[in-house]
């Protein structure tokens, strides 16, 4: 088992966004964290590179990402007033793309802030 050590990793579990975390991983799992708090440590340890979920679901049935992307585009394009919501546990780069999508489909876009 090869263990890779990553320094100065950033934890996005809570708003502290600590960026001084040391992570030890075996390629599939994070096996050890240093400097993380209990919340952060379990966040890192509980996410793996394993394939635990289907790639996509359409109406609850397993589907390919391509088909799911097509279905998503069709629903959003057809809607009169779609909503794009969430944006919290994603990167700024994904948020930026979400704005672009919201613009193309004429949506309302909102985050957790409004709660």
């Amino acid at each position, binding site marked *: 088992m090869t263990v890779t050590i990553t320094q100065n990793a950033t934890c996005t579990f809570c708003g502290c966004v600590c960026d001084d975390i040391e992570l030890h991983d075996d390629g599939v799992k994070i096996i050890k964290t240093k400097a993380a708090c209990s919340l952060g440590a379990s966040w890192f340890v509980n996410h793996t590179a394993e394939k635990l979920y289907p790639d996509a679901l359409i109406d609850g049935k397993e589907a390919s990402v391509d088909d799911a992307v097509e279905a998503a585009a069709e629903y959003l394009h057809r*809607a*009169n*007033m779609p909503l794009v919501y969430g944006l919290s546990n994603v990167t700024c780069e994904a948020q930026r793309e979400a704005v672009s999508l919201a613009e193309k*489909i*004429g*949506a309302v876009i909102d985050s957790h802030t409004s709660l």
Partner: protein
Amino acid sequence: MIKLTLKDQPTVPLEAEMLTPDQFSGLNLDAIRALPVFLGKRQLRVDDFFTVDGEPSDELEIHGDLAKVKYIGRAMTRGRIKVCGNVGMHLGAAMKGGSIEVTGNASDWIGGEMTGGLIHVHGNAGGQVGAAYRGSLSGMNNGTILIGGTAGLEVGMRMKRGIIAVKGQVRDFCGLQMKGGTILLMNGAEIRTGAWMIRGTIISLKPIKLLPTFPFACTYSPTFLRLIAKHVAPLGLSLPMDEQTGTYHRYSGDSSVPGKGEILVWQPRV
């Protein structure tokens, strides 16, 4: 009179700021039918949603459950709109003159930043009646709003002039950051009435919960109340004035701002 009747409930909110006497002025019925309305992201025509009948006129009657129809009467300057049914947000927003009557309930932001005219809702209203839009320095700057039922949060937020009267109870933050004008509460309010008010008068005929920043000032029956009473009499409202039956307690505040506003609470004699 021009009569519009809603054909089907829109599935998502319909923005219909063209439904005003000003926009209809000089248009025949076909031209009115062709005016734009906005269903979410789609630009459609008035007659996609309404049947339009009657004669060109400054009087407009709209029938149906318009709870999802927004901006009726926006920025109108004259004429009359009667909504027979419920109505959606921003009714009469930025209105300058004329009158609007609603037989059912209204939603939020009615009369937002209005500068004149009359809005009379027989049913309940939502929040932010006569209020300032987010960030604006002031809300309604004149005119009259009468609510027959209850009203929601932040009634009269940052209002500067004019009168809002509510027959039912209102919710929190009535008169928030108020700068002037009068709010008449015939049936009291929930909490935080007058929060951060700078000037203006809130009159409550029922005891209300006050913020600690509204210390008791005095007992009195000011003469200007007679002027307000005279102004609201045509709306079917009467203020108790008889010193035999009670007095007003005056609380001044909000001392946190610090403000020179007042809340007058009617105290019947026991």
